[in-house]
């Protein structure tokens, strides 16, 4: 609709008029629908894309004494060179990996078992499992701290049952993983359950009718069909648990310094934003690589629309 611009004495007006006409023209229904998304596109642009670009910008620059900006990769190099920092990243991934596996091992059987129940009971149990999410995460973590401490009920129970001396559970892998599993359990249960509950019953029946054992049916039919749900759950647990601040802080007795804590320190305590930004980029890249690899595992990956 925009034709050639004539250079008239009025300058820009023909172009402006044409743009205005373009905006005001009667639109097809399709176009109208697409316009609805404009606020969202704005949000995406301003609050998601631009900030990410900002982080990238901070990561590759460094403040100079004269306030000049230098392009540099030093921030990234510094991370890999600084003693122990790669170890922090590795620790975070390790803990998050253990958390994800444990959560999966607890969530999958639960989802599987309740698929057997009446629909109403299924809904009830899912609600019960997800209800704790409404209680503040810090509060739940602090509650675990009280339970696991040497003066707490767990040690009291162990002492009473087995006559054991109080063990300090806090500040151990056990406590940190436990805390994280507790927080992320609903995130794993719900996608797996959604997936399992939608698996067509007839496929199971067919497999059994054809003579396969229950075990075989599970491994060859149910499990593969449930992989999208598992993948969804894993994604929702793996990434957040690697970067969480709260659980290491309260359950780790300050000894657990994970990547989230490191970034927090660089931004809020040291004021080294460039460094912090670089570490954030490294973190995102590593996590995306891991995510990409886990997606490869899912051979029956359906379109995301069927989520």
């Amino acid at each position, binding site marked *: 609709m925009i034709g050639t611009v004539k250079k008239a004495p009025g300058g820009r007006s023909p172009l402006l008029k044409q743009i205005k006409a373009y905006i005001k023209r009667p639109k097809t*229904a399709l176009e*109208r*629908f*697409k316009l*609805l*998304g404009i*606020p*969202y596109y704005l*949000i*995406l642009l*301003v*609050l*998601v894309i631009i*900030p990410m670009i*900002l*982080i990238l910008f*901070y990561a590759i620059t460094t403040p100079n004494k004269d306030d000049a900006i230098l392009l540099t990769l030093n921030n990234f190099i510094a991370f890999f060179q600084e003693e122990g920092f790669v170890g922090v990243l590795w620790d975070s991934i390790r803990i998050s990996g253990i958390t994800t596996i444990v959560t999966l091992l607890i969530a999958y*059987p*639960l989802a599987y*078992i*309740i*698929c*057997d129940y009446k629909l*109403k009971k*299924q809904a*009830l149990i899912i*609600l019960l499992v997800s*209800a*704790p999410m*409404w*209680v*503040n*995460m810090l*509060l*739940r973590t602090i*509650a675990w701290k*009280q339970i696991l*401490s040497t003066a*707490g*009920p767990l040690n009291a129970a162990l002492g009473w049952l087995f006559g054991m001396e109080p063990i300090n559970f806090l500040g151990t892998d056990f406590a940190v993983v436990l805390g994280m599993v*507790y927080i992320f359990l609903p995130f794993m249960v719900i996608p797996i359950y959604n997936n399992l509950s939608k698996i067509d019953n007839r496929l*199971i029946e067919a497999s059994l009718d054809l003579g396969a054992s*229950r075990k075989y049916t599970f491994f060859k039919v149910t499990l593969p069909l449930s992989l999208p749900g598992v993948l969804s759950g894993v994604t929702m647990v793996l*990434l957040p648990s*690697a*970067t*969480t601040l*709260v659980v290491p802080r309260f359950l780790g007795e300050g000894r657990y310094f994970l990547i*989230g804590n490191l*970034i*927090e320190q660089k*931004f*809020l305590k040291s004021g080294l*934003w460039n460094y912090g*930004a670089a570490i*954030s980029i490294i973190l*995102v890249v590593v*996590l*995306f690589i891991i*995510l990409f690899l886990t997606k490869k595992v899912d051979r029956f990956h359906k379109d995301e629309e069927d989520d």
Partner: protein
Amino acid sequence: MKIKKTRKFNFSVIYVILVLIFCYAPILSLVIFSFNSDRSLTNFQSFSLIWYDKLFNDGQVMTAVLNTIFVAVVATLVSTVLGTLAAIAISRMKKVMRDGLLNLNNLPMINPEIVTAVSLLLLFLSLGIGQGYLTMILAHITFTIPYVIVTVYPKLREMDENMVEASLDLGATPLGTIWHIIIPNIKTVIISAASLCFTLSFDDFVISYFTAGTVNNISIYLYTLRRLEPTINALSTIIITGIIIVLVLSNTIKHKKVNDNEDED
């Protein structure tokens, strides 16, 4: 998917119960100590309601609670509306743009919270926007809106295209079609998305911590508390009570519509 009950029936029940005990042990501890007459969270002295009193009368705690609710409500409303509209818009697009936008949409969800938080902090600082309610609400919208789209979009796809076309053919405006046709159809999912938004915003810590400036929400208040005390336990107990009410209601009210498929999400 249904599997026939096997002889392992008893073990499964025990397993479910164990998991539920695991889920509720700390909650139980929280509730019990909300009634403690002492501030300790490990030694129960005697029954008392002082923390409930403090919850409602201490300016700082109540401000934190109200801030949390306020931000959650505003963010939920904005996210749900804009997200639903966006999902509708996306569903009309061609595959390339659609997939592109959906992938982009996933970014805040997959991005570690701390990276989102930090990126928003940098944005607000660069723009010189003072951190307060506005920045916190914007931040909450940013991280909740993708969930709205992810929740609403699949249901939109499932919906019968013909109804929309019919409506348009019959002369309804696109907005009218949305209001009268599309929305009633996906109403359940929209409410799902809204309550999801609310939960995420209500409970958020990391993103709020970096973008809230001095507005305290419940999580920030807890994180900066020098010594723990059962005041927020009292709040949590109230919320849990609300949830129990929900449980009782949902189990006693019978579902009227046969079509009201409970498997719907």
